[in-house]
């Protein structure tokens, strides 16, 4: 199908004056967007800027309100993902769409299985095909492994293979690096290079500037539904791109007062715990978090961070060991009791644990405090007080849209995070556990979250930051603990740490192994 446009400019995708309205909300305003064949094109914009909406129209999930789409120079009207796939367009969503108990191969062929006589699945054939594809593009996967047993990075490669198996020539990757470690990101960059070397076209939706510099040839910036421009990536600096995206100068440096730590507020001693599958996940964790510091827990995803946070918030039982918080043994405390003692947590999965989606902003802002005055008296809610509280926090934390009756699930990721932050910080906690607090957020929102976390620390409270993003870790931390396979392999002062050293420790190398 790539033939047919040889005489014209080699454009794989051309979207002309695409406008998309949702009710009275203008998500895309007459956007022109074109992608050359064989290039890596980044679509840059803050959360809610309209980049995913634009790509969803290319993938047939939405129909444009007006405007035209050309694929390889040919006018098309894409009304379903199925049609998009038939046109050679594949999309890897931010949240993977894989069947957990199925194998890699089963997931890849799902929906277009090759069958032999009597409709019997041709498993061997499928396996061969998957292997061929994966070798050709350097997409290392284990075709026989089950999705639930493989890493997030490999799941992503499975998603890419799924698209290729369906004959995709144009690949849309939605926030592909949000869940990856630095090493995995490098590997992904290599895969993308392999793809373009084979003539594929790749569109990356992202708000991470460094990756754009790393991977993309050209970059289109969208702000609030309007296209700001398309530029050659090589010709612009990161801060220039950030300014295009946000509309103002952005600082990447986090301003911090010097550390004034004192006694530990949280101490873990030899904590052992199991993961959901009953396997040991924490193998003797001992760690102190002191007042007035940000302690960052660095590590590759799946080395026990989630389990550790769950142990701290009271969602997971320990097998042995003790957790002390503010001079009391809280190992057997319920989540509610811990919250009462002054522990606050920003969960890694906003939608799952941070918010009640169908609740309004106001209702979400009083979770944890709904039983206390002024929000309720003798079990009866005071809606006026709840509304006032919400309006105050909406104002102070700049939550948009500023309507307290707005459903939390309809907010953008950044604003959802602001709701959680507002709730957790205004409780004035003694210890704030922030798990991947900026995952999936745009530059502006990240800057905001970082400022707030530092503010909590500067007020003399303790912050435990769990982040997969090394830049974030290095920008915020006063001390860095590296977790590897359920053990703390090193605790470094910020001055001793750099990306290389941490990367090595995170990969299990060069540590004083316990």
């Amino acid at each position, binding site marked *: 199908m790539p033939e047919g446009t040889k005489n014209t400019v080699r454009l794989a995708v051309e979207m002309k004056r695409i406008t998309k309205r949702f009710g009275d909300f203008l998500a895309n305003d007459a956007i022109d967007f074109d992608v050359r064949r064989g290039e890596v094109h980044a679509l840059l914009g803050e959360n809610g800027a309209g980049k995913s909406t634009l790509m969803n129209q290319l993938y047939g999930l939405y129909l444009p*309100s007006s405007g035209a789409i050309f694929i390889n120079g040919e006018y098309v009207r894409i009304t379903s993902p199925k049609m998009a796939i038939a046109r050679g367009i594949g999309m890897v969503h931010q949240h993977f769409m894989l069947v957990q108990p199925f194998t890699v191969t089963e997931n890849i062929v799902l929906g277009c299985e090759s069958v032999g006589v009597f409709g019997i699945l041709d498993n061997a054939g499928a396996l061969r095909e998957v292997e061929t594809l994966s070798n050709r593009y350097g997409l290392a996967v284990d075709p026989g492994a089950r999705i639930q047993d493989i890493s997030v990075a490999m799941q992503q490669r499975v998603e890419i293979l799924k698209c290729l198996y369906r004959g995709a020539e144009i690949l849309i990757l939605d926030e592909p690096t949000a869940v990856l470690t630095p090493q995995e990101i490098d590997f992904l960059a290599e895969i993308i290079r392999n793809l373009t070397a084979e003539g594929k076209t790749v569109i990356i939706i992202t708000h991470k500037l460094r990756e754009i510099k790393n991977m993309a040839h050209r970059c289109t910036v969208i702000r609030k539904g309007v296209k700001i421009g398309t530029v050659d990536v090589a010709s612009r600096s990161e801060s220039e791109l950030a300014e295009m995206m946000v509309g103002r100068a952005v600082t990447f440096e986090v301003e911090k007062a010097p550390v004034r730590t004192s006694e530990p507020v949280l101490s873990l001693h030899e904590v052992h715990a199991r993961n959901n599958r009953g396997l040991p996940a924490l193998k003797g964790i001992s760690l102190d978090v002191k007042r007035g510091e940000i302690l960052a827990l660095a590590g590759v995803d799946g080395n026990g961070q989630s389990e550790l946070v769950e142990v701290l918030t009271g969602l997971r039982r320990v097998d042995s060991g003790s957790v002390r918080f503010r001079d009391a043994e809280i190992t057997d405390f319920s*989540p509610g009791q811990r919250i009462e003692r002054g522990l606050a947590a920003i969960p890694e999965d906003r939608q799952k644990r*941070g918010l009640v989606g169908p*609740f309004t902003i106001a209702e979400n802002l009083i979770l944890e405090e709904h039983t206390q005055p002024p929000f309720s008296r003798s079990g009866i809610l005071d809606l006026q007080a709840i509304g006032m509280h919400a309006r105050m926090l909406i104002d102070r934390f700049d939550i948009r849209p500023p309507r307290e009756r707005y459903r939390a699930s309809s907010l953008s990721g950044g604003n959802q995070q602001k709701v959680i932050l507002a709730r957790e910080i205004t409780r004035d906690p003694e210890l704030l556990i922030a798990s991947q607090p900026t995952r999936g957020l745009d530059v502006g929102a990240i800057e905001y979250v970082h400022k707030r976390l530092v503010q909590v620390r500067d007020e003399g409270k303790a912050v435990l930051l769990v982040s997969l993003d090394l830049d974030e870790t290095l920008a915020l931390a006063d001390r860095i603990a590296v977790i590897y396979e359920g053990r703390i392999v090193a605790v470094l002062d910020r001055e001793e740490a750099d990306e290389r050293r941490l990367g090595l420790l995170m990969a299990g190398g060069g540590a004083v192994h316990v």
Partner: protein
Amino acid sequence: MSDEKRKFLAASPLFFTLFSVITGLLVGALVLLVSGYSPLRAYHVIIDGIFSRPSYIAYTIIYSTPLIMTGLSVAFAFRTGLFNIGAEGQFIMGALGAALAGAFLNLPPVIHAIVAALAGIAAAAIWGGIAGFLKARFGVNEVIATIMLNWTALYLNNYIVALPGIKRPAATATAFILDSARIEILPLWKASEAGRAWRALHPFGHDIFRTPFNVGILVALFLAFFCWWILNRTTLGYELRAVGHNAECSEHTGIDVKGRMISSMSIAGGLAGAAGALHVLGWTRQAAELAAMEGLGFDGIAVALIGGASPIGCIPAGLLFGALKYGGSKLQFALRAPIEVVNIVIGAIVFFVAMPKLLRIIGRWQQRKKRQGGDSHAA
């Protein structure tokens, strides 16, 4: 502007429910037509059977009363993320508890009725709470637990009803409840001499007094409002809804998720129990041995569905359901049409309510037609 208004209406659940009701009635008409009855005449009979006399209206309300409450039971549990299939069994327990307390306690009027009703509600709340406990403690799916408990309730009822000392001689039911526990409106007076004299002069009142018209409907209306209030105005309701929408988040923010599951199922049980208790105190005056489930609890599922799982919505839904059941029962007599037609109508309404996608498809289809009609900008 009017276009936007229309769109708003089309998206509102009320419009959607009305649409489903009308479609259900049309399907019923079709079934009648196919079976050789005139739908117009049949619906005429039904409407006449509901509205043409005060006693008919009174009976419609009496029929609707337990349905509103079992509907509330299912709706309440549903709003908190639980599926209560056990309203049937909880209804039985409520009826049994009220019948025993009504027959064997000796208390002054009014107080006796309240105590008997509370006894039924308590028995049913425990019954519902068992399912909640099983789910919270052992992870037993509440659907399965409540289905099992329906049967347990049925046979427990039959066992207790047949016990010597409880069983009424020459009947397979408990002793009648005492007059002090009855909630019928003036049950004794209306049969007395003075009552009869008054009734002779007041044909309207006379007609109503022919029915076991009772205060149950007031309780049902109160309970509907009470459920709404609990869910939307109390910390308990706040927590219940939070658990229903997102149990993981609720746990993370310190809500006692398991405890709330039990309270939700207990409240749901109590609501269905109130239906059973008031049914006994207001009408049947006994708990009878049951050969099969009566179905008032199961009907509550349909009522809750039609009512959009909202407590207030259960009132019109219960009235509609009760009216169709009562009015439909006259089809057989008037037309010799099978009463099952009414069940088909109700089934069709539920079917359309449960099919939100259909309306969306129709909406899209209309939009397309409009676009083809020359309207250039699509919404």
